[in-house]
């Protein structure tokens, strides 16, 4: 693998002693009905010319707000309540809106988070880049068009000239992000603020974009302020690191030093929970020392996630609980009139899952991994092939037999905000499967809900809550509790932890492992994140374009990947081989 050594990214020759950006005791608050709610509380940081600095933190930690405060683009009612933002010695927080316009784009470039919504769908790409170039007075008229092509080519769109007239919907996510980076760098700013520039992209695309951004900024000596939730990315791409928690800086300094030797308990926890290729499979606490670990206790995460990863007993050889043989799924997409385009979403896929084990299905977007989940759950019908569950062919199950199958195979979906009915309180949500299958009396169902809430470590009082009052992680725990209500044999987890912050993700993975040992569950774990796979899976199937390209045990896949595609995926994980200090 090529990414084994992590080098400091930019050691620019142009090193002056005057800091480019200096933030002093910055405070940002949002005006609400109940007064000003602080979002950033006394943040100070320094960035020198040519350096790369990463701000990491969980959602709600104030990292994006800090970045937006620099260029005074705070959302809604946000405003700077105290402190200074010195850019080349000039206090930006005191500038007028008119003066700020001159700073934005020309001196400080900004790459927003979501490439899907940050390009205007009604204008072509060329127009939008040219607009930025003209607004910043880089070039006008014919020269602006020339510059547009140049900017896009620099951003990695080789056929830029032919693509100028195309619209955002004709570009993939990665290409759109390149356009946004091109716009951000079009005026050769001294500082580029990149807010989660690659979090919506596949790992291989992410790597290309980050490499490209690195080359560009190194060439021009641009300083970069990265905002990310990914510690691996920070370790690999930034020399300086700022860790934020609840609007405050908890730790800052050279990134590799911090990540190798975190001092603050919060950073230690973050680092411990960060999945990386150097991790091992999570072992059940109950398995290891015979007593339940409280997933809330501060120190338990690092121990359960990694340290107890010594060895896992080989699961007993048994027949496959789920056996998938040569399944395919063909979608017919209507194009014009009565014509159809055929899309083979799943192409001749076979694998088996043994009872009590976890099989991970890994692939990038569009690889067909979620379709496989739907086929196994009988939410879509297979075009050809066979799925056997416990020795029984499940295709075309109907009525009572289908209901019986559904009782034993339960799903947990990706989006913890969408998979719970907003009108139902938690108690009713968890009791719903029991009610649907007419199990028990009302009192018995209540008792079961209580037991389930306890299993996912939520207090009994949670039953009256509505999903909108719960955090993403709490909702996902409710979804797991609902899935467990019928005492199923199999859980199909479709990107079940992808939307969660790293600590919460660690907590859920831990919980899943505990439950697996306790209840003998079998998991089909669908994800795009190979680092997470390392933590939970016994076996891995790597999917690409509807096909399985590699199937092996987790250790085999990670230690000696056979297929080029698997190697590429592994190499693309940011900071994949960085040895985090645990």
């Amino acid at each position, binding site marked *: 693998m090529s990414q084994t050594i992590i080098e400091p990214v930019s050691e620019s020759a142009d090193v002056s*002693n005057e800091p480019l950006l200096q933030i002093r005791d910055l405070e940002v608050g949002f005006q609400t009905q109940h007064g000003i709610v602080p979002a950033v509380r006394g943040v100070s940081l320094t960035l020198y010319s040519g350096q790369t600095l990463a701000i990491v933190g969980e959602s709600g930690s104030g990292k994006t707000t800090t970045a937006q405060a620099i260029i005074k683009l705070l959302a809604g009612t946000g405003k700077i309540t105290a402190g200074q933002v010195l850019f080349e010695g000039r206090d930006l927080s005191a500038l007028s809106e008119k003066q700020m316009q001159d700073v934005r784009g020309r001196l400080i470039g900004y790459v927003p988070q979501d490439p899907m919504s940050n390009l205007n769908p009604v204008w072509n790409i060329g127009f939008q880049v040219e607009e930025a170039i003209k607004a910043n007075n880089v070039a006008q008229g014919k020269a602006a068009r020339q510059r547009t092509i140049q900017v896009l080519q620099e951003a990695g769109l080789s056929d830029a000239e032919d693509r100028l007239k195309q619209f955002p919907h004709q570009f993939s996510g990665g290409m759109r992000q390149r356009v946004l980076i091109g716009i951000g760098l079009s005026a050769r700013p001294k500082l580029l603020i990149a807010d989660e520039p690659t979090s919506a992209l596949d790992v291989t695309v992410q790597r290309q974009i980050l490499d490209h951004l690195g080359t560009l900024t190194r060439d021009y000596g641009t300083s970069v302020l990265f905002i990310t939730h990914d510690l691996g990315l920070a370790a690999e791409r930034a020399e300086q690191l700022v860790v934020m928690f609840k609007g405050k800086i908890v730790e*800052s300094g*050279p990134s590799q030093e911090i990540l190798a030797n975190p001092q603050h308990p919060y950073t230690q926890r973050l680092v411990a929970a960060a999945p990386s290729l150097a991790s091992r499979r999570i072992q059940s606490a109950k398995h290891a020392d015979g007593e339940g670990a409280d997933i809330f206790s501060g120190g338990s995460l690092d121990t359960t996630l990694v340290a107890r990863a010594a060895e896992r007993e080989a699961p007993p050889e048994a027949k496959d609980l789920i056996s998938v043989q040569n399944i395919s799924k063909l979608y017919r997409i209507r194009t014009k009139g009565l014509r159809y385009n055929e899309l083979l979403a799943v192409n001749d896929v076979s694998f088996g899952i043994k009872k009590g084990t976890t099989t991970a299905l890994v692939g990038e977007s569009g690889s067909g991994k979620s379709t496989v989940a739907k086929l196994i759950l009988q939410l879509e019908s297979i075009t050809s092939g066979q799925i056997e569950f416990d020795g029984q062919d499940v295709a075309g199950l109907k009525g009572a037999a289908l209901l019986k199958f559904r009782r034993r195979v339960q799903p947990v979906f990706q989006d913890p905000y969408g998979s719970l009915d907003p*009108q139902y309180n938690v108690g009713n949500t968890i009791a719903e499967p029991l009610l*649907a299958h007419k199990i028990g009396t009302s009192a018995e169902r209540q008792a079961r809900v209580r037991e389930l809430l306890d299993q996912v470590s939520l207090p009994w009082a949670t039953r009256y809550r509505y999903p909108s009052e719960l955090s993403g992680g*709490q909702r996902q725990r409710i979804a797991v509790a609902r899935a467990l209500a019928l005492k199923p044999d199999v859980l199909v987890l479709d990107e079940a932890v992808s939307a969660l912050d790293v600590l919460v993700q660690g907590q859920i993975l831990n919980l899943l492992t505990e439950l697996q040992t306790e209840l003998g569950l079998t998991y089909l774990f669908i994800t795009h994140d190979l680092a997470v796979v390392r933590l939970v899976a016994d076996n891995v199937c790597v999917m690409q374009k509807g096909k399985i390209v590699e199937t092996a045990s987790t250790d085999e896949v990670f230690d000696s990947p056979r297929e080029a595609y698997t190697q590429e995926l592994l190499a693309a994980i940011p900071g994949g081989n960085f040895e985090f200090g645990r």
Partner: protein
Amino acid sequence: MPNKNPNAQTHYVAALEETPVETVDRLDESQKARSTWADAWDAMRVRPTFWISSALILLIVIVALFPSLFAQVSPTQCELGDSHDGPADGHPLGFTRQGCDIYARIIFGTQASVTVGLLATMLVTFTGIVVGSLAGYYGGILDAIVSRIGDIFFAVPTVLGAIVLMSVLPERTPVTIALVLSLFAWPQIARIMRGAVLSARNSDYVTASVALGVSKFRILLRHVIPNSIAPVIVIATVSLGTFIVAEATLSFLGIGLPPDIMSWGNDIDAAKSSLRTNPQVLLYPAAALSVTVLAFLMLGDVVRDALDPEARARR
């Protein structure tokens, strides 16, 4: 990292007292549990408009149910000698051309107007919800047929359709007017319901329920309809006012309620001949109509603000 860079910064660690570490993702038990409807109630409760419109509507409903509590004078005992007289003792608003008490006629006319409004709204809402949710949820041929039928009725303006139909009906009562109006007005609600159901049908929580083994019809009843009903409630509150106006329009045109049933529309119709000589005869029933419609529109406005998720997010 080798410290070659003169600008390399020192490793800073915040004091633990200032940045206490908390347990991961703990449930905040200090807050009270809130459902969407409880949230909506809280949002409405603080709006003066809500209380004003509710008080008005309550008053109107009480007047419609017990008109004799409010007017001691009979609206049908008219002395021609009082024709076009101004306000007198016991007759605060004066007399019509026929010598009837204007105040008493307005009070007793409330019943017909409100009956038509409420009945038509209930019919339209019920039909719209049933038709719209079935079409949106089951889709396919059912959806195609129901939607086209809806389009046909939608193409006919409600009042025009009602004029044609009312002119051939043998009997004209508040109930028949409500029936006729709802016959032409249900597609609007059905369309809105269908759209809301279509988006709710594809949500993850519905897929989750399917995978849990919940039956299709039960999912429609327990998950899809409760999550689609908010926009319908908003439109229904607003349309209540428009139905009252439609009844008045039909009565004004002489094909609504027959003259022996008191209604504001009939009174406005009767007043048009004396508009120039004695405008108060027209003014008071028209004002009653306006206030009633305004009350329902104001309520509809508050309800929309409370139930609209985007308006909620802005708060």
